[in-house]
């Protein structure tokens, strides 16, 4: 095959055929039915279609916002969970580090618990009001010796 194959005039001939009378049929189809042509052009738009067409941009915008909000919420949730997991891991690694240094894990737990109880005691301690104390001591029948003994016993 030479490089000039495309210059062969035979190749430019049309190899396709159409069914007999096809073009006459097309002509008849589009020229006889004048009324149908008018009907084709005047197909009214349905109310529902118009409503959807008008609202489509707004709906798309709303959907885009919803998707963005969803992505943002998911990101915040995932990051929050990760932070919590990191804190728990840090606490566990602290306990394991103490255990590694030879401390019994029960002892470590007791120390932590004791520290916690001390904090609670500190929170529960109430500073007495001086006026209340004076009233109490002026109460008839109050014996300072008994008070001292009772306080020491406690």
């Amino acid at each position, binding site marked *: *095959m030479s*490089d000039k*194959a*495309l210059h*062969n005039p*035979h*190749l*430019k*001939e*049309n*190899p*396709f*055929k*159409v*069914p007999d009378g*096809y*073009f006459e049929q*097309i*002509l008849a189809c*589009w*020229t006889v039915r*004048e009324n149908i*042509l*008018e009907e*084709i*052009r005047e197909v009214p738009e349905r109310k529902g279609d118009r409503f959807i067409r008008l609202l489509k941009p707004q709906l798309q915008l709303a959907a885009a916002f919803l998707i963005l909000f969803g992505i943002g919420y998911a990101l915040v949730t995932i990051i929050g969970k990760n932070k919590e997991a990191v804190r728990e891991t840090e606490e566990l690694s602290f306990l394991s580090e103490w255990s590694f240094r030879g401390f019994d894990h029960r002892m470590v737990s007791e120390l932590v618990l004791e520290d916690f109880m001390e904090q609670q005691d500190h929170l529960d301690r109430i500073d007495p009001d001086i006026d209340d104390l004076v009233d109490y001591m002026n109460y008839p029948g109050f014996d300072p010796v008994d008070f001292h003994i009772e306080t020491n016993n406690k």
Partner: protein
Amino acid sequence: MSSDKELYAWCESGQYERAFQEIVRLYSQRLYWHIRKMVLLHDDADDILQNTLLKAWTGLPAFRWKSQIFTWLYRIATNEVLTFLKKSRSVKQLPLEDRLNADPPLFNGDQIQKALQKAILRLPPKQRLVFNMRYFDEIRYEDMSRILGTSVGALKASYHHAAAKVQESLKELLL
């Protein structure tokens, strides 16, 4: 034979039916062959031609007559063809090459013509359009530029590229 001026005058006076019937008489065959060379099968070409004529009829009152009517019609047909080819790809229909073999009564080309059609089928759709319009229909690059909305330089480059590919494919197919 009616010219664009006569068609324009009919449309201006509101005689759209008369103008459109003349358009169908003048251009339906050219449009059909333009479409058929792209999609190969008669049934597909017929569907696309009907859609093209329908769009031409509904769009005729809005046509501004700044370009030739045949340029406008070719543009509609070309867009319809490209849409069809895109859809055909998406629904994974049979390759056109196989479909050509399944439609022998409406294809009576000899071996070399069949090889040429197969070679053209190997081109991407837009390059195939350019090749067909230039090689078979001998449309001027300036007119093609108006139809396809591409620069003349780009069309020339595209055609020469396509012709070289077809030449290569023909060599391979006719060995």
